[in-house]
């Protein structure tokens, strides 16, 4: 090449003709060179990137700004309306709206006058707030709207409590007395509150013990009984209904059953004891409208005098709620409590999926790239794989439920667990089938980057290996795969991100609204791939669109979304870290 071809400046035309012609030519050149220099393209491409970033950061901003404050304790306001109603609650939402003339006409005269005054003063807008007023068991509603012109009096009573309960949602009221094991402390006062905290801890400990007995010990007995029943059924299936084996198994089951019943009775007595103990532990509360209520202490998850909290106390409440969110099971149809089973299910399902899909995808890519003779068939297969990535995920879900759950799972059930039929073991949605379905879904996501990574291994490296007398497989195993490993990890990372965020197919193949048991527990064989599981993505859908108390669930939707995003980011960062390590090891310098 000549030097002139690299000259970035446009060459000046020779002034062969008159000066006018020369100028025109120069202008034309400048116009083309502006486009050639790409100034507009810089703006176009940069603008596209900027727009994409703006949209993504808006999404993140909304999720973070709504997700993070969910657990922050708000002050509880008590409101007296002109109509004489009194109620208390946390402000959940503030907005202003235009009150129409019909609505205005429907108001009582005094109220209408106040509304008109506010409309005039406030730019034809009425401000209103939504209060989370709780006390569902007394009022039949969780939330109520109040317009500013209706408010006659507003205060933040010092001892107004916010009580989170196991059932019925939140309760707002002022404590009047604490009853604990026959002792009564009147309040509200500092001393009573200190007593309450001690009493509450004890009542909860008693309740935890009862829960533990109910869940674990009774569950264990029930399982033993069920196994004995299954043994009878197995004997019947294997040897016939009249066989001596069946009779023996039945005798054994009866003996065991008597033994278990004895144990069960003992546990039942203990439960009654604990119940009786906690029956005398109560908090008497007066609501804002003067009603009296009695809250059993064991039913109180958390209670705090919202208007007396300092910054550190609020932080403590926040931390305690975050802890509950991350480590506890959900309650109140998932709108309260924690999401630990969903986190656990999501992570476990994603990991099992990765373990399944990565080796499978790498083997397939190896055949396509290294062994298959290039031709129309291989090209067709490659196109098919790429298209697989574009199939809607619900299609994979339908396939998963039809093939994995009913065909494979049903076959496994009749083969391995005939005694449990007709209740399915593997023949219904579960962790294994969900992981397999997602593995199938993410297969192209692994195959395509892996193939590219294999193709990018320098030919000189392969030739060097062959020249040393290595066979094809030795070359692949020792040279090609290590060198392609970072690219394979890229595929795995993409699959991980795709799989962790997928919801639609999971609804069909195993994710459930509420899973009683985690897929991993202390009972043999520890990992239970047939169990259904909770998934964060499905949990978000369930919270947002299936919840009965949707206003209360809304902030949880954002918080859970934030958690899911954070989880995917963490999984990805770990994978990227592994990839960086591999890259340092296998690609010290580019050749």
């Amino acid at each position: 090449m000549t030097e002139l071809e690299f000259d970035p400046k446009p060459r000046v035309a020779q002034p062969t003709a008159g000066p006018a012609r020369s100028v025109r030519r120069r202008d034309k050149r400048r116009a083309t060179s502006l486009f050639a220099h790409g100034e507009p393209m810089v703006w176009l491409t940069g603008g596209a990137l900027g727009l994409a970033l703006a949209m993504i950061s808006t999404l993140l901003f909304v999720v973070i700004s709504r997700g993070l404050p969910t657990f922050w304790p708000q002050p509880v306001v008590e409101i007296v309306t002109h109509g004489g109603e009194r109620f208390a609650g946390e402000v959940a939402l503030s907005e202003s709206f235009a009150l129409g003339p019909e609505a205005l006409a429907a108001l009582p005269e005094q109220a209408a006058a106040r509304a008109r005054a506010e409309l005039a003063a406030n730019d034809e807008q009425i401000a209103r707030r939504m209060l989370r007023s709780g006390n569902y068991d007394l009022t039949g509603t969780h939330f109520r709207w109040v317009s500013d012109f209706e408010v006659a009096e507003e205060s933040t009573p010092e001892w107004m409590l916010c009580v989170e309960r196991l059932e019925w949602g939140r309760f707002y009221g002022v404590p009047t007395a604490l009853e604990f094991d026959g002792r009564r402390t009147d309040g509200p006062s500092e001393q009573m509150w200190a007593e309450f905290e001690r009493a509450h801890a004890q009542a909860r400990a008693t309740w935890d013990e009862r829960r533990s007995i109910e869940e674990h010990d009774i569950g264990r007995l029930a399982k033993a009984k069920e196994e004995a029943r299954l043994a009878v059924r197995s004997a019947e299936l294997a040897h016939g209904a009249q066989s001596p084996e069946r009779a023996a198994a039945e005798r054994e089951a009866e003996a065991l059953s008597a033994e278990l019943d004895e144990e069960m009775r003992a546990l039942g007595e203990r439960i009654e004891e604990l119940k009786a103990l906690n029956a005398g532990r109560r908090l008497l509360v007066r609501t804002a409208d003067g009603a009296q209520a009695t809250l059993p202490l064991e039913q109180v998850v958390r209670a705090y005098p919202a208007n007396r909290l300092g910054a550190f106390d609020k932080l403590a409440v926040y931390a305690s709620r975050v802890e509950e969110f991350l480590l506890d099971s959900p309650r109140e149809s998932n709108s309260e409590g924690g999401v630990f089973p969903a986190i656990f299910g999501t992570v476990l399902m994603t990991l099992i999926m990765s373990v399944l899909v990565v080796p499978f995808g790498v083997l397939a890519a190896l055949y396509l790239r290294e062994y298959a003779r290039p031709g129309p068939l291989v090209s067709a297969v490659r196109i098919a794989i790429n298209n697989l990535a574009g199939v809607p995920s619900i299609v994979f879900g339908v396939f998963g439920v039809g093939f994995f759950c009913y065909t494979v799972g049903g076959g496994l059930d009749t083969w391995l667990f005939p005694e449990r039929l007709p209740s399915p073991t593997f023949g219904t949605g579960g962790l294994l089938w969900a992981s397999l379905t997602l593995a199938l879904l993410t297969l192209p996501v692994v195959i395509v980057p892996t193939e590219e990574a294999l193709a990018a291994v320098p030919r000189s490296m392969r030739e060097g290996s062959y020249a040393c007398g290595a066979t094809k497989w030795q070359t692949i195993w020792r040279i090609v795969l290590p060198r392609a490993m970072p690219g394979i990890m890229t595929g795995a990372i993409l699959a991980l991100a795709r799989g962790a965020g997928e919801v639609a197919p999971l609804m069909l193949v195993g994710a459930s609204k509420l899973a009683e048991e985690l897929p991993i527990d202390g009972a043999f064989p520890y990992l239970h791939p047939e169990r259904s599981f909770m998934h964060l993505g499905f949990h978000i859908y369930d919270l947002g669109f299936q919840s009965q108390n949707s206003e209360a669930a809304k902030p949880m939707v954002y918080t859970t979304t934030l958690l899911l995003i954070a989880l995917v980011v963490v999984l990805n960062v770990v994978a990227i870290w592994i990839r960086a390590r591999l890259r340092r090891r296998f690609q010290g310098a580019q050749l």
Partner: protein
Amino acid sequence: MIPAGPSPAIDGDMLLPAPRRGLPSPTMQHPSPERSTPSRPAKVFEAIARNEPHVTETHLSLQGDDAVLEVEQFQLHYGAMHALHNISMRIPRGKVTALIGPSGCGKSTLLRSVNRMNDLIDNVRIGGSMRLNGDPIYAPGVDVIELRKRIGMVFQKPNPFPMSIFENVIYSLRIDGESDKRVLAQTCEESLRAAGLWEEVKDRLQDSALRLSGGQQQRLCIARAIAAEPEVLLLDEPCSALDPIATGRIEDLIEELKGEYSILMVTHNMQQASRTSDCTAFMYLGRLIEYGPTDDIFLQPHLRETEDYVTGRFG
């Protein structure tokens, strides 16, 4: 990412400027027509252009040598293209043989035919025969994997494997399943010493080979090739991607390996051929034009064309 390319700070080749030896450069000192009169007028290329068969001008002084590699009537086609025409030559044992000629004349193809690297390419047809120490290379039933283990090869661009220096050197032992740590360590040290790299890398054998400089990488590739104790060593323009100092080191190394190993080397560099080789073969358009002792080829070639090429008058 580690920055690509050799960095001067770790380039061991910079440490020791290599002493040069060898014949006076042919491009500096043209052989005068009086001293070496070509036996025939310059008509060989015209004959080739007319597609007439060419009979290699093999110098008589080579006839008696003990040959490690015998090439007879060797033909090679890439699809419709006839890449090698009737090549016959005997590569002497324990000496360095250089293949020279303009680009595309088939030097590398001939070299890669020796260890059957051309098998990896579709559409290659072979005629004639090659024998390595008497064993046929192209007979049916020859185990190519076993054959390649008897032949070492070093490529144009350094191609260390993505693994440690140690693993690179003992690669051929690994693929043979050798697992005795003492044998591996000993082979590694001997090979690296033979390749003149031991002193530079002995403290970082577990480092990635990809972090070595270009010249060190190429010597590592030579160490890897000789670790398998090959019967013949093929060098395919081993210095073309290296700077002059690294080139000097490799040339010294070839000089040291001479005698112990039989080397067949492709080079584009006339000085390199004249300095390092014992025999030189001049190729042109897939034909072996002239083959003889290096001194004769450079100072008294029989053919006019050879003289033109080695003196830089064409090509």
